[in-house]
């Protein structure tokens, strides 16, 4: 019989685009695995549920998945959505590997079966502060969008910058995501005369900010968090406005020289005729690879054995976004964050590591 693996992702609601992409990627990889004979001689089957990007729906989806005989679950995207499902999976002893939930506390609770392929906000905050410092900016404005993720990152970055010293935070506030016109906020930002603006929100807003900033004739450098890593950013902002924009992100498959990344990209393009949307969806693919590897490596679908394998045995598994290992908390190890810059042609160019 088949080994069932759950996938929890937002297929409706505000984050539907992420969830739909997650589904595409996971299914693509699962097909590939099955073509190669599956794992432990059994085929795998993906069972997906919509979490609607909302905690309550997610809790239901989690309960539903638990009744479907899955051995592990991938997902989901938002931190608070994931959090609403954590104890459900934990109580049911189901391995959960989240892909887009970066809030620090998710892995601070000591849940044995919880892992994530994405890095944590504090990690990114550290890298962000370091990068800002390295560029030599003195007056920093930090703008978030009041979502769990963006605000968490903003606060991490702020703390790190303050700890390092020599930098003044001249602005720290949020915009309202989903709007189209951010000139009021940009005007206010401009009046604070920052050297740089660090925006920790998502790419749709980042694109508009860049575009409208350019229109105002304001030439301040912008740095984005990893949620701005989306090719649509350039489309939204326009090439002129987007070029010179820096952002932090785990590397996307396009930038990796590994055979896994290349093969994945080729397969994805062949099937869906486009590039994957965001790195977060790709990280759900990594979650699947890790699960399959854990089953294979522990030669079992027993959650305790799998969890043990993931915690202590899995080392540098080649994934779509680089090598994957987990620490005892379930966090992915290694410094993943890289700095990207949008070049004159609108490509995201990986900046050399210092």
């Amino acid at each position: 019989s088949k080994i069932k693996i759950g996938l929890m992702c937002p297929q409706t609601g505000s984050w539907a685009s992420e969830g739909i992409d997650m589904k595409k990627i996971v299914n693509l990889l699962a097909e590939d695995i099955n073509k190669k004979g599956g794992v432990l001689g059994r085929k795998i089957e993906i069972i997906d549920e919509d979490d609607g990007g909302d905690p309550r729906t997610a809790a239901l989806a989690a309960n539903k998945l638990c009744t479907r005989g899955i051995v592990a679950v991938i997902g989901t995207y938002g931190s608070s959505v994931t959090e609403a499902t954590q104890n459900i999976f934990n109580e049911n002893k189901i391995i959960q590997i989240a892909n887009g939930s970066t809030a620090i506390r998710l892995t601070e609770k000591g849940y044995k079966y919880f892992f994530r392929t994405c890095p944590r906000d504090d990690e990114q905050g550290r890298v962000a502060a370091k990068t800002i410092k390295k560029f030599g900016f003195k007056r920093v404005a930090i703008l978030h969008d009041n979502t769990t993720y963006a605000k968490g990152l903003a606060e991490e970055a702020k703390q790190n910058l303050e700890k390092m010293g020599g930098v003044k935070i001249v602005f720290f506030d949020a915009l309202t995501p989903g709007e189209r016109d951010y000139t009021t906020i940009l005007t206010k930002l401009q009046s604070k005369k920052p050297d740089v603006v660090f925006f920790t929100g998502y790419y749709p807003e980042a694109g508009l900010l860049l575009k409208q900033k350019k229109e105002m004739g304001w030439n301040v450098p912008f740095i984005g968090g990893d949620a701005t890593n989306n090719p649509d950013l350039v489309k939204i902002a326009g090439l002129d406005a987007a070029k010179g924009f820096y952002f932090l992100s785990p590397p996307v498959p396009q930038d990796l020289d590994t055979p896994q990344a290349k093969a994945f990209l080729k397969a994805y393009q062949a099937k869906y005729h486009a590039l994957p949307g965001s790195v977060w969806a790709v990280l759900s693919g990594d979650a699947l690879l890790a699960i399959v590897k854990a089953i294979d490596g522990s030669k079992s679908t027993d959650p305790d054995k799998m969890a043990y394998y993931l915690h202590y045995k899995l080392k540098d598994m080649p994934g779509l976004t680089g090598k994957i290992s987990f620490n005892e908390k379930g966090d992915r190890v290694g410094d993943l964050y890289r700095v990207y810059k949008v070049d004159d042609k609108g490509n995201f160019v990986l900046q050399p590591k210092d």
Partner: protein
Amino acid sequence: MNRKYLIWAICLIFFLSPLFLNAYWVDVLNNIGIYAILALSLNFILGDTGLFHMGHAAFFAVGAYTTAILNTMYHIPILFLIPFSGITAAIFAYLVARPIIHLRGDYLLIVTIGIVEIVRIALVNNIFGLTGGSNGIFGISRPHLFGLIIRRPTHFFYYIWIFLAVSVFLFHRLRNSRFGRALNYIKEDEVAAEGTGVDIAKYKLIAFVLGAFWAGMVGNIYASKMTIISPESFTFWESVIYFCIVILGGSGSITGVILGSFLLIGLPELFREFAQARMLVFGLAMIIMMIFRPQGILPPPPRKYNVDQIN
């Protein structure tokens, strides 16, 4: 007589259902139960008094956050916090409703939308440094009842549905009393209601306060069920759902509202098969149900009076 037995049989089967349903379906029923109580509490304001109130999630939120804050900071047991959550929500409702109670129809509607949005934004912005901002509050403990920890869906099933049953009992009595009738007078004609001696501002306020009190208590249940709450659970859209439950079920009707919760909360679960088209189907269902039952699925039955006994 036969009908009565049938109803009791259905109730019995329902109360035994967790024994043969899986955890998921039990949890669906739990959600339905929570929404049913919330919608019943909204029904006072919207269905009985005819006040267009689309911000009920604000009161729910106040109750849930009261529980969460007091439980995580001072470790007060969840069950003790039930009345407390109700009272804070009621006080909050009193304060916000007082200045706006004279607004009519759609003006009241938009103001209540405003209230729920202001509350959500305040929560997101970590007002008073208590609400945890957009992260919300986590680590809320489970209710302890006589040594039993209520944690599994089945436990919650009994917890929630008994609470609902008690609410229904009380609300039903209230509906058939001077107070319930007075609310209806206001709904039908404010001028005439005043003319029969109803202090309409006071009764409207009481309706708000009482509805909020119940919503606040549900907030407590919700907080302990989820163990983590965050502002996104208390949006305007949530209020819209309660609103639709009341109207679709049959505004003013207790059975109707419960049935409405089954439809509006249960249906999307049945529609899971439609994946991405699920909300589309759901929206269509809403339109179709309204067209075929504009007065709601089960409009309120006329009250019965024991006239013969008097003659």
